[in-house]
């Protein structure tokens, strides 16, 4: 396996003065003025709903996805998967830890980077990939407690279906409009470092707040029953998760890539506790997969 270089980002010049274009209060005016070109309806959907589908025109797109799946399969006990005995499994940064260049290639696809640049108004770069052979049944959450940015909102997720996804396979679910909820940090919940570190899954500390938001605001769940090659962009703060896996013998091959944007400060809000050192671990130096 060829050693993979991992570059970390430390912006020489921060720009803390602007918001993502899709988060601008006058986003609809920008759409009307043609600021998003061919991505107008996607921009409006991200602004209003917090998610949207990006059409990839590259004829090599599906073959690339086939490569990703084919190279991941040897890492999975496919027999256990087919018999429904495989628990939720994921491969984080497979391009780095398993040397799968195609995972990185998918994350850095020029059509994705170009669309994100137009939608957010800044150059994007992928900093993390996750590959899933089956459903995660993950509790709904906002990614913005795990990784976020200053200025707020310069982070997003992209979910790509590596195969057709069945409703019984535990598809991706999300709550349109929930991206407008306030961004949360551990300090907003009065959490100390000790409280966060004591939890094996500290996301659980935030889940009651999100459940309250769903109850109070009445956000409705939608499922992403994707066809192979479909690509969903979701806003940093959109509540999303995995539906229960009704048929554990079904696979749900997918790749999630998280993107940051240039000239921001990068944070882990989960570690931004009431007693956090102002220069502490809540500040990130993310990887930049576009740098080789």
């Amino acid at each position: 396996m060829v050693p993979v270089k991992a570059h970390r980002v430390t912006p020489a010049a921060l720009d803390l003065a602007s918001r993502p274009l899709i988060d601008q209060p006058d986003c609809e005016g920008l759409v009307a003025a043609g600021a998003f070109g061919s991505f107008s309806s996607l921009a409006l959907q991200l602004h209003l709903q917090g998610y949207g589908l990006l059409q990839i025109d590259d004829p090599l797109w599906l073959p690339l996805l086939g490569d990703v799946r084919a190279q991941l399969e040897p890492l999975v006990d496919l027999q256990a998967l087919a018999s429904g005995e495989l628990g939720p499994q994921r491969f984080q940064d497979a391009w780095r830890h398993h040397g799968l260049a195609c995972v990185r290639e998918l994350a850095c696809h020029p059509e994705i980077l170009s669309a994100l640049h137009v939608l957010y108004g800044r150059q994007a770069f992928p900093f993390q990939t996750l590959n899933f052979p089956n459903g995660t049944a993950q509790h709904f959450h906002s990614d913005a407690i795990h990784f976020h940015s200053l200025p707020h909102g310069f982070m997003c997720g992209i979910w790509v279906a590596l195969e057709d996804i069945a409703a019984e396979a535990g598809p991706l679910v999300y709550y349109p409009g929930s991206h407008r909820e306030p961004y949360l940090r551990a300090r907003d919940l009065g959490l100390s470092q000790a409280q966060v570190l004591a939890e094996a899954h500290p996301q659980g500390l935030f889940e009651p707040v999100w459940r309250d938001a769903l109850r109070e605001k009445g956000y409705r769940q939608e499922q992403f029953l994707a066809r192979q090659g479909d690509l969903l962009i979701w806003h940093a703060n959109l509540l999303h998760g995995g539906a229960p896996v009704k048929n554990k013998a079904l696979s749900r091959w997918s790749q999630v890539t998280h993107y940051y944007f240039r000239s921001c400060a990068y944070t882990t809000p989960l570690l931004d506790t009431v007693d956090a050192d102002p220069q502490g671990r809540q500040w990130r130096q993310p990887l930049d997969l576009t740098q080789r």
Partner: protein
Amino acid sequence: MAIKSGGLGGILGMGRKRGSGIQGGIEHLLPGRITGWAMAKGSELQEVRLLVGSHLIARAEINQPRPDVCDQLGMQGQPGFSLTLPTELPPLDWNQPVRLLALTADATNQAELQLIGQKKQTADRLRALFQSEQLGLEGHFDGLQQGVLQGWAARRGQRQPAQIWLQAEGLPPQPLPCDQWRGGMEALGLSNQCGFRLNPGQLPGGWSGRRVWCSFDPGGQLRLPQVEEVLVPAGSSVGQLTVPAAIGEVMPLKLGSYQEQFDFAPEDLREHWQALEQFRLFLDGFEEEINSFERLSLSKEASPGRLGWLGRLLGRC
């Protein structure tokens, strides 16, 4: 470097930045906002940019009406600006220069703006503000309305209520939690639970008739904007609520020892308490005398249903 200017021009900070033809400055430095004005002869200024070294912290267009400035300069335009500050900052090297620049659209003409009347302190004041806990707080002291001191304070995107301080010269500040409903604030990106209301009758006695203001910080340096002077109505304070033990710390009257409460009480309240204390000591002494007398009597006969000193004073013995 600015050229000196007298009269109203001096108040407005109408010195000219050498070489740029730009005039203006910072009028108000608030935790959440910097306001001021800037104008240039021969070119149109587009925006102000706040920089720490090469990092752009905030920017705003120069587009707000300032007829007072235009009249004074004999120029036309909208030279005012209101720059919203971020609510949090990443770790920055504070040895780098901190500057507020006014510049044209193509940045060919630019000048550094400074605090009007405090030019040399501008960078230090900005640095101190950026590193303060109050960064990003916004608010307003409405004054006394329908007999109640009221206003609001909040930080954009923050769930927890802000706390500000009611101030009067020479008195310990009173904490004011800003957690009461105030409609319409969400439209400004703030929580609707950001108001404060205080009945002056709940203030300690020393506040009666005093000129008051609100500040974001307990030290009283960062004042909330207010339209006019506010006086606590004379005779409205009754000293029922709390007395600050020290800046940033509050001790309810019902807690703490008598001496602690006494030490931190306003002066007029202390006199009142001292008079009561002397009367209590007098009564204690009087009771002691009665007890001594009774002890002598009891040695001669038993005394069933013995009453306390107050009962005996009231003639029930």
